């Protein structure tokens, strides 16, 4: 059984990738190949950018099953329309039109069960791929134009090797379905925020979400020194664990922009990363 730690934020650009990649690198020194980093931000995975020498070992194509309605067999009875929870099936008897809208379809197969005239068959549509790198990084990458983020995250999680001690899941920003899917089987969640009103607003949404689904979590404040003190007040009032405080640092930011996040790490930041890494390990009893 592996421990799953998800890194999420609510607001985008607070430092999920910074924390995920730094945590991964720190843990790799101790655990070696027993830790994997999974980039679940399938719309724009970027963890791989920070491992310039990483080699792609192999990839899996992830496909979605899309029903096709054959109008020569269809009686336009609309039973499939009634079965579809996602309003993806359009059937208009008056003009003898029947079609499935792929961008609304969730591939549940209910319309196939509904149809008694064998008028519906399935075809496959590529929604993305799962890339496996030699550095222990796995990433999901959504096909441009596909809206099946959550389905891809679900499939991505099936490709995580089961024999690892620790799995780090770098979540997409926001609090939508794809984020819920990412954190849903995490044993612990690290929330990354920034001390700005916007950062705090979205942190609160994420805290609400995690409390609702019953996940233990702690908070890393990134870009500390920016904005105001309100986030600390909130954490204090709500009794939320402050895991670490990464100071705002221009050199660190410019290294990140160059893809050089893991080299020349300012000492003050390296020590914070070490600190929260050990705190999390302690929290998990590892």
């Amino acid at each position: 059984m592996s421990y799953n730690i998800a890194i999420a934020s609510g607001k985008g650009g607070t430092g999920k990738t910074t924390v995920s990649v730094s945590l991964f690198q720190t843990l790799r020194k101790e655990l070696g190949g027993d830790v994997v980093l999974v980039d679940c931000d399938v719309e724009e995975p970027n963890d791989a950018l920070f491992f310039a020498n990483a080699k792609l070992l192999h990839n899996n194509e992830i496909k979605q099953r899309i029903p096709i309605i054959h109008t020569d067999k269809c009686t336009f009875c609309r039973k499939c329309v009634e079965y579809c929870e996602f309003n993806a099936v359009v059937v208009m008897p008056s003009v003898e039109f029947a079609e499935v809208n792929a961008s609304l379809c969730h591939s549940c197969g209910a319309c196939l069960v509904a149809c008694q005239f064998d008028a519906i068959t399935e075809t496959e549509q590529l929604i993305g791929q799962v890339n496996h790198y030699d550095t222990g990084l796995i990433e999901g990458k959504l096909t441009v134009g596909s809206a099946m983020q959550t389905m891809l995250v679900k499939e991505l999680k099936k490709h995580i090797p089961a024999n690892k001690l620790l799995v780090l899941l770098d979540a997409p920003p926001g609090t939508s379905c794809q984020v819920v899917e990412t954190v849903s089987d995490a044993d612990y969640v690290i929330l990354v925020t920034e001390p700005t009103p916007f950062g705090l607003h979205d942190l609160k949404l994420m805290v609400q979400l995690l409390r609702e689904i019953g996940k233990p979590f702690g908070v890393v404040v990134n870009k500390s020194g920016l904005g105001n003190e309100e986030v600390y007040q909130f954490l204090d009032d709500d009794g939320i664990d402050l895991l670490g405080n990464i100071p705002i640092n221009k050199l660190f930011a410019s290294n990140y922009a160059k893809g050089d996040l893991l080299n020349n790490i300012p000492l003050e930041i390296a020590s914070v990363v070490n600190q929260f890494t050990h705190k999390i390990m302690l929290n998990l009893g590892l």
Partner: protein
Amino acid sequence: MSKTVITSSGNTLTSKFDKRFGRAEFFCLLDEATGQTSFIANEFKDANHGAGTKAAEFMVEQQVNKIISGDFGPKAKELLEKFDVQMVILQEELTIQAIVDRISKK
């Protein structure tokens, strides 16, 4: 006979024009020849997914020729175009009556 739909926020002629298509509260059906109007509640307005698609499907089934709304989403637009339903976009704050009057003055 020309059947026109105006998206409406209520079910009377004094109601405000609703600029949403798939999530409009009501559809005002107007017979341009006779000036007769009737209102139908939009049963898809709170759908989690595909409200626009369903509303477009309804329009085609009702043999509507023209729809006046604030805008149309891509999925609804594709369907309505396929069946030659004219889409008219209005961005003004108007009552349904004002729009009906404007049409009948033509």
